[in-house]
């Protein structure tokens, strides 16, 4: 595994008015790896993603991309760095077709005229590289696609732009079993192609199936970032629900909270 992270966040703070959503969050994304970002509802996963993608501005903290400090002020900054986000609600325009959606905001032009043939060709290549062969036409309106097909179109967008980091927000949440398997396979293929993939998921089976690392958010704090092979299913669940599991995770706020310490004198106590 590569030693230097592709994308590194340090001490990210973000609040909305009086509500502090993210506290000193750090996250490292490595090329060729799937980093699963897990956490309970309201833990700050989506906020963190929106900070990375430039939809929200961070209040403080540093973002390092390929070793260089960068500042992201808007979605276009993020996409010009090569950070692509596939949102839970997919963010596709139903009234546009597949090609139009894949190039939305970054249309290929000749002069002021849209270069439709080039766009259609590139979109076809991108979909083919993901082994998508189920679309009737690239000019089909997105409205007429199934959930899995939409997810594929959204992910293919990332491939199209030769992105370096792809963030997927619950890509399998709304899918059936077969489609979930397809999308997970797609996620793995993205990482195998050398991209840094961040997978947000609630589904532990998905997380353990494809991820190399797991980062757990707990109430706006990064509880732990661990290698998937080093932890068990239940440890991750504890990280999500309690912020710590044994000796990994957040330090206790009060000593009494830390069972490990409180039962320190007991032989065989769980450290």
């Amino acid at each position: 595994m590569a030693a230097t992270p592709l994308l590194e966040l340090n001490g990210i703070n973000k609040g909305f008015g009086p509500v502090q959503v993210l506290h000193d969050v750090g996250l490292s994304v490595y090329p060729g790896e799937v980093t699963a970002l897990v956490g309970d509802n309201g833990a700050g996963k989506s906020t963190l993603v929106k900070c990375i993608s430039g939809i929200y501005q961070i209040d403080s903290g540093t973002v390092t991309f390929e070793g260089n400090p960068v500042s992201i002020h808007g979605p276009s900054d993020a996409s010009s760095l090569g950070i692509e986000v596939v949102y839970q609600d997919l963010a596709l325009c139903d009234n546009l077709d597949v090609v139009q959606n894949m190039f939305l905001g970054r249309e290929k032009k000749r002069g002021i005229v849209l270069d439709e043939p080039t766009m259609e060709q590139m979109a076809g290549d991108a979909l083919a590289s993901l082994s998508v062969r189920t679309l009737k036409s690239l000019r089909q309106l997105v409205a007429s696609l199934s959930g899995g097909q939409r997810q594929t179109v959204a992910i293919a967008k990332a491939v199209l732009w030769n992105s370096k980091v792809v963030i997927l927000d619950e890509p399998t949440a709304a899918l059936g079993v077969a489609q979930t398997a397809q999308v997970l396979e797609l996620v793995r293929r993205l990482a195998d192609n050398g991209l840094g993939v961040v997978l947000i998921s609630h589904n532990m089976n998905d997380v353990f199936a494809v991820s190399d690392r797991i980062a757990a958010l707990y109430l706006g704090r990064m509880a732990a970032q661990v290698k998937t092979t080093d932890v068990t299913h239940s440890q991750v669940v504890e990280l999500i629900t309690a912020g710590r599991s044994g000796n990994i995770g957040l330090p206790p706020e009060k000593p009494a909270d830390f069972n490990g310490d409180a039962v320190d004198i007991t032989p065989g106590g769980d450290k």
Partner: protein
Amino acid sequence: MSTTTTTTAGGVKVIKPTVNSYIRDYWGRVRGGDLGTLPAILGLIVLSLIFGISTDTFFSGLNFANLFNQSAQVIFIAMGLVFVLLLGEIDLSAGFASGVCGAVVAILLTNHGWEWYTAIPAALVTGLVIGFVLGFLVAKIGIPSFVVTLAAFLGFQGLLLVLLGGGTNISTRDEFFNSLNNDNLSPVWSWILTIVAIVGYAGVQLNNVRSRAKRGLVTDPMGIVAMRIGGLAALLIIGTAILSQERAINPAINSLKGVPIVVPIMGIFLVIWTFVLGRTAYGRHVYAVGGNTEAARRAGIKVDRIRISVFVIGSFMAAIGGIMAVSRASSVDPNTGGSNILLYSVGAAVIGGTSLFGGKGKVINAVIGGAVIAVIDNGMGLLGFSSGTKYIVTGLILLVAASVDALARRRAAATGNR
């Protein structure tokens, strides 16, 4: 129905359409709720036949030419409204904005002695400024467009009265200006422009097919392309032929023949805005914001700018509508752009197939919908109906169009077309 499977660039399998399968697909889309301009075109044909059969004069050249002059203001305003409606917004002030811009041009021409080539741009700039203010209030301050433009509707009505000194009538005497929506091109120029339009359309269509075929992409079947070109050519040639006939009641006094000057002006704006919506990134972004604002924002589109720009285009086109109205009447009065002009314009866009819910519509909708309204107004006038009856019928037709839109959406939601 032979369909051959072909492989596009990249290996995504798609079916190469034939004339048959193309028509079947189109019919499938219509049944699935993607109606486009079809209801309006059918309505136009039916209404024309009814009026043509029940009156002697409806199909006369004189009346045909009149239709264009009468509907010019509504069609121009409606073209601008299409952009506003595409974002799911509304501009209730477009009618009186056109009146204000019309008053500006008339005052500058008559009271200040400006030439048409300075007065018209001044009116257009007035339209741009009005649109920018409306758009700014909607996009940046966040007031619903209904409220902003309702306030502007009242405000501009008052402004028009103030500009005209409390209700006087200012007439325009500039010959060129008055000719814009009254006079005709010579038959020679009419034919030249008709041929240019047909050749231009054919060129664009064929070039499209050629450039796609060169890349190995799926093209529309040649039969369909030929039908499109042939259809447009037939329409334009028949129209020009009718309009090139002498249609004056007494040709010795005042000969009337040729295409009304306002027709090519409409054509030019139709082409420009269709190009902008269909072939530029800006137009794509307008559709995107109308279809899914959040998706557009996440794609990096500056949503506020798009929102302001559609109001600017809307009021700019309203200014042109106002200029045409003043030119037609050779005067401006406090009711220019008032009464039913705005509602006819919104009606034209909606009847033509532009959705009130945003994201769906084309500039041609404004022209076809405007034609429907003009035909009702004109035909019922010829039949001797009172304006009361005309309003009721126009209202019913608008209701039908809006129902078609709403039902089509439901149908589309059920069949997954939207």
